[in-house]
Structures are given as C-alpha cells and as structure tokens.
C-alpha cells in the first residue's frame, strides 16, 4: 500500500518530506490540500494534524504530522533502500546527523523562515516585505552561516563526509531563499555555496524543486 502525503507541492515543508521519499525511492501519493481555501484549518484535515499545518502522512493505520518527524520515519522505515540518510550502522555517526538536524531546526530555520515569509507570503496578504524583519533575520542567519562555513571547510557535508538527512532538511527553505535578494549570504561563503550547489543538484531534490514555484507569475 502506497504512502499518502497530504500537502502542497509548492510548500517547503511538504517538499522536505517528498525529497526524502525520492531519496528512498519509495512510492507515495501526494493528496493536495487547498491552502488558499483554508482546507488545512478545518476538518477533516484537522483530524490529521490538530495544529492545522501541512504536511501529514498516512501509512496504513499510522498517521503522522511534523515534516521532520515524517522524514525521519521514512528514512528509518526504508533505511535499506536508496541513499543512506541516517547512518544507522554507526551510533556515533547517527548522533552527528541528529545534532545537525537539530541545528537546522533550532538555528537555521528560525532565521530563514521569517525572510521567506516576508518575500513570499506577506505579499499575498497585501503587504510589502517588512525590511526591519528581513534585516534582523539576515543578521541572525549570517552568524549561523559563519558557523556552517567553518564546519563545511572541515567536512564535506554537515554531519561528516557523507550526505545525510541533516543536509536534506535545509533544501526546501534554502531553495526559496536563493530566489530572494538575500541569496548573497549563501553565495559569498565559498564552502556553504559549494555545499548548496552539491545538495541542490541531487536528482531527488530536482524532482521536487520543479514544482516549488510559489510566487511566480500565474501561481
């Protein structure tokens, strides 16, 4: 039975999970949730995620939400197929992956997400991007990226010399970020830039990126 993923192709959190599913070469069905109609804030979707956010996953009887938990589940369930994303054969490597997954969650995401919101979501609410919020968060993100620049000068990927779920978690929000005037934060750090070019060119992400067209004309 195929997995069902409830979400939207242009949503970065849904894309996070889809990238993982592609890396694991696992079939799934994307069931569209109409964000503009507010479908995610009503029943029946609220029964899948009481916080009213996409994505949500159904795998037989199991129902999950939170994109990072869903991706971790997929990576664990299908650990023997596709790319090794979680380094399950080494407790220490697996722990390093978890450190940098948490860094994405606790350091990177809180700085990059408000910038994405200002450029892509605020205009939908009829507002211009708030420069003060953008400036505050580019400063925060710059400091985080300085740490990344140092780490990626020592290892090829975040958790070590191997691609992992920690790198994957950064893809979808960074993809949108690179379409903003703030992209220079990535481009002016050579190790970060090389890392970004590497991870964003992976076929599994390319499949997902083509549908991530939020904010483009006609969408």
């Amino acid at each position, binding site marked *: 039975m195929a997995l069902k993923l409830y979400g939207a192709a242009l949503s970065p959190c849904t894309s996070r999970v889809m990238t993982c599913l592609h890396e694991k070469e696992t079939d799934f069905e994307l069931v569209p949730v109409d964000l503009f109609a507010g479908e995610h804030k009503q029943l029946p979707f609220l029964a899948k995620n*009481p*916080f009213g956010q996409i994505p949500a996953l159904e795998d037989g009887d199991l129902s*999950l939400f*939170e994109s990072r938990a869903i991706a971790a589940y997929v990576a*664990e369930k299908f650990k023997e197929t596709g790319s090794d994303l979680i380094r399950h054969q080494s407790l220490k490597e*697996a722990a390093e992956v978890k*450190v940098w997954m948490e860094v994405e969650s*606790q350091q990177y995401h809180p700085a990059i997400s408000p910038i994405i919101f200002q450029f892509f979501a605020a205009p939908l609410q009829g507002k211009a991007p708030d420069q003060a919020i953008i400036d505050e968060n580019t400063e925060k993100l710059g400091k985080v990226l300085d740490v990344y620049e140092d*780490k990626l000068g020592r290892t090829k990927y975040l958790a070590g010399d191997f691609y992992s779920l920690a790198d994957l978690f950064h893809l979808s929000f960074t993809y949108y970020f690179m379409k903003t005037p703030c992209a220079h934060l990535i481009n002016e750090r050579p190790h970060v830039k090389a890392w970004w070019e590497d991870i964003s060119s992976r076929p599994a992400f390319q499949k997902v990126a083509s549908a991530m067209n939020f904010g483009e004309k006609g969408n």
Partner: protein
Amino acid sequence: MVVKVYGPIKAACPQRVLSCLLEKDVDFQILHIDLDAGDHKKPDFLLHQPFGQVPAIEDGDFKLFESRAIIRYYASKYENRGPNLLGNTLEERALVDQWLEVEAHNFNDLVYNLVLQLVILPRMGKQGDSALALTCQQKLEKVFDIYEQRLSASAYLSGDSFTLADLSHQPGIRYLVEDAGMGHLVSQRKHVNAWWDTISNRPAWKKLMELASC
C-alpha cells in the same frame, strides 16, 4: 566514564539533558557555565558549541550539542536500561518524534518568549514586553487545548508510556508554572494537569530539582 555536561543546572536546555541522564541512571558531572558573565560566548566554550549555547556534552572523546539530539543519543545508547524513552516499534518511535517536533516548533518558542519577557528580562533589571507576553500566552492557550485533547486519549503524548516527548516538556512547563505565574495554563486543563502532575513527580525529575536547588 562520567558524561561531562556543560551548562548551568538551572537552565532549561541543560535540564532537558540532565533529566534524561537521570532517567537512564548515567553518571554525569556538571561543568557550570556562567551565562550572566557571557561564558557561553567565549572562545573556549565555542569549541564545544559553535553557536554559543548551552548545553554541550563530552562523553570520553565523543562530543555533542543540541539538547534534543543529546537526549535522542542517550535514549538510544541505553535503550535497554531504565525506562524505554524511545518507543518499541518503528511506529511508536515515529509518534515520539512527532511530539518532540511539536515541542520544538509549536511549544518552545512561545514558552521561551513568555519566560524571557516575564522572568528573565526583569531579573536583569530590564523591561519585558508585556504585549508580546500576552500574545505568547494566548497562543499557548491554544496549544495547551490541543494537548488537552491529545492527553484525553492517551496518558502520555505519544501513547501509554513516558517518553522523550514528555520529558522534553519538563523544563519549560516548570518555568511556566513556578516562575512565570502561568500555572493556570496547566491547572485549568484536567488531562494536562494530571499529566504534568505525573511527569513532574518522576523520581529522576525530582532528583534534578533537588540538585538544582543547592
């Protein structure tokens, strides 16, 4: 071998780690970091944690940071010792992960900002932003409503046993109830109240509170 934990015992994120180590009966040594003196931003400490935050751990040669990664590591390393904090099946583990993510993304920021405005800034002699505190409180009410609904269906967040998902909430809820005057968020919700009562009376947590009060 004793695990070295860098951080002040009274801070929330080190407490998350210490609660887990106590549950698993792992010996540790606390290396105090003076946040008021800015020790966590100094070059020595940045070698342990490049983002300048507590906690960080050293277990022999092995170093880790990010409290939620540390607890996942120890819950896994000592899976067969003490309570099972991870879940047994793949599905149970996924639910533990889900509620850990909820704590990280739907709960933590609100508690952090509320406590910063109502407790931390005033302690430093600064003015807290009461409008921001109110907004956080109102959002937390909605989050706790969802927890109330969840906990009416199972004794703990991810199912019928205490796991990392519940443990991860201990330090934040303690701050809300004991320091920020927000106890009503818990006490006015029958199932949340029973859950907090249970998890805050676990011997490991009580031991930590004892150590932290010295």
